[in-house]
């Protein structure tokens, strides 16, 4: 197992679109497990392969307090979505920034597990939000894209400033 390095906004590689996984073999399983380890290490609840610069449709999620109920979603798809709910989100690729995003409240989704078997499930609450957030990543989208232009501008300025300070330290 190995820790992967997570890309940070505004890295353009976060805009890449992932392609479907064709065969779920040992190399995919290794990537998924490394992603999980990376997510635990960074303190996240979900991670998409695009965030570690792997352009395949792989997501890992764990919402449990004890960090012992991992979900591996290969080729996830949303089948239907209902309702609307605003929840405060953050992202390992946009460190230390949190804001409210409106998403569907309930979803039905389909995915393959690490053995290649297909499942169809329903989700609501935090899990529904997290799946929508991660599938966005696979399509090159970030949660901050949903914010107003003004908020996005301010965020970019803040990050640029951090970058400058960081450069000075170096």
């Amino acid at each position, binding site marked *: 197992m190995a820790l992967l390095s997570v890309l940070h906004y505004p890295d353009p590689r976060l805009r890449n679109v992932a392609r479907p996984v064709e065969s779920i073999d040992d190399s995919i399983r290794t990537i998924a497990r490394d992603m999980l380890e990376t997510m635990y290490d*960074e*303190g*996240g*609840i*979900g*991670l998409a392969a695009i965030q570690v610069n792997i352009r395949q449709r792989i997501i890992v999620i764990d*919402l*449990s*307090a*004890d960090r012992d109920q991992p979900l591996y979603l290969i080729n996830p798809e949303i089948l239907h979505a209902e309702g609307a709910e605003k929840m*405060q*989100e*953050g*992202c*390992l690729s946009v460190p230390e920034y*949190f804001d409210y995003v409106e998403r569907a409240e309930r979803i039905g989704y389909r995915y393959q597990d690490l053995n290649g078997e297909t499942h169809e499930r329903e989700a609501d609450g*935090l899990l529904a*939000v*997290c799946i929508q*957030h*991660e599938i966005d990543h696979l399509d090159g989208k970030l*949660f901050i894209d949903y914010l107003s232009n003004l908020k996005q501008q301010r965020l970019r300025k803040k990050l640029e400033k951090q970058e400058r300070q960081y450069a000075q330290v170096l």
Partner: protein
Amino acid sequence: MNQPPIQTRALATEILYRLCTESVSLDHLFESHLKAVTGNREKAFVSDLCFGVVRWHPRLDFYLQQLLDKPIRQKNLKLRLLCWVGLYQIAYQRTADHGAVSATVNACDALSLQWAKAMVNAILRHFIRRQETIQQAADDNEVARYAHPAWLIQAIKTDWSDDWQAILEGNNQAPPMSLRINRRRTTRDEYARLLQEKSIEYREISACPQGLILESAYETGELPGFNEGLVSVQDGAAQLAAALLQAAPGHRVLDACAAPGGKTCHILEREPRLHSLLAVDIKNARLHKLRENLERLGLEAVIKTADVTQPDTWWDGEPFDRILVDAPCSATGVIRRHPDIKMLRQPADIDAIRTVQMNILDSLWPLLASDGKLLYVTCSIMRRENDEIIGNFLDQGQNVELDLIDQCPGTRTQYGCQILPGQQDLDGFYFARMKKIR
């Protein structure tokens, strides 16, 4: 994705704010507010902050008054609550003082109290410096010393001139976790062995043949045989009701204010050969707990959601041999378990509750068979809800006589038996029994 770090102090302040402004119980607020908190440590911390602040708020507010030139205005209630949260951590928790100050000051951001940051900082730092003097002053002030609102101290003094200090101190103790062994499925000795196997420390409750007190609290899932119905969680004082009801084989029993059903289940556990038990409660939402418990313990009862004071809407006309009236009350006997009562209860509430109590007795008495008995129970320590209610009812003389409780494990009163909070490590309960004469 990741989630924002939880501002535990801000969350506790929000919960306390809703407690003050909406008069909803802490238990209820925890259900809605702590659901989104995933970390168990954070959950426990927020709940300890809330319970602690609520339990000690009259004392915390005294500290605050000592630290301010003029009191915080009512429109800044949130700020006052946040100050209590900060003071509680310094006075009662083992958090390092500087950590408590900075975390409490930072919580201002999440509460839109940015303007008050310097003030919160100053208040908490002053408290750390002057703590010894302020604590001493608090011990000399009755409200701060006993940490109860002044009206409640006065009311308890009036009713219990010898015991009021012990009662107030008992109310401020953290309550034990008490168990009731299901004697249909096991015995207390057998269950004690299961606890020993799991190294769970316990002691017997002398007043309750099925009662055990655990030396520390556990989740019910951790208790051996809980899901298999060997045991329930119930305070020892509440366990006295079933025996005092004296239900016998063939009896029709009415449990008039049954939810959440601890006493209902105990009556059934004690006497498997009843003719029937009807459990009524006005709140349907509270009855699902009773259904769950009946199923878990393998017991059966008829359950109805109804207003007991309107018998024509639910009574089939067959008189009852036993009626248990576990009446709505001020709950002043269980403040150690529900410290929010100190904040929620108002002096005028007692009169309103008395009307309900008298109404229930008047409505149910006609449903009792000749020679039948009615057991009146409250978790109150106020004479006006206890002996006075029974005295009034006996004076009306509708075929009624007192059936004196001969073995009282607490304090004998004119008509009944009062357990004072903390007495024998029990909750504060009142019992009186009346008999219908021909």
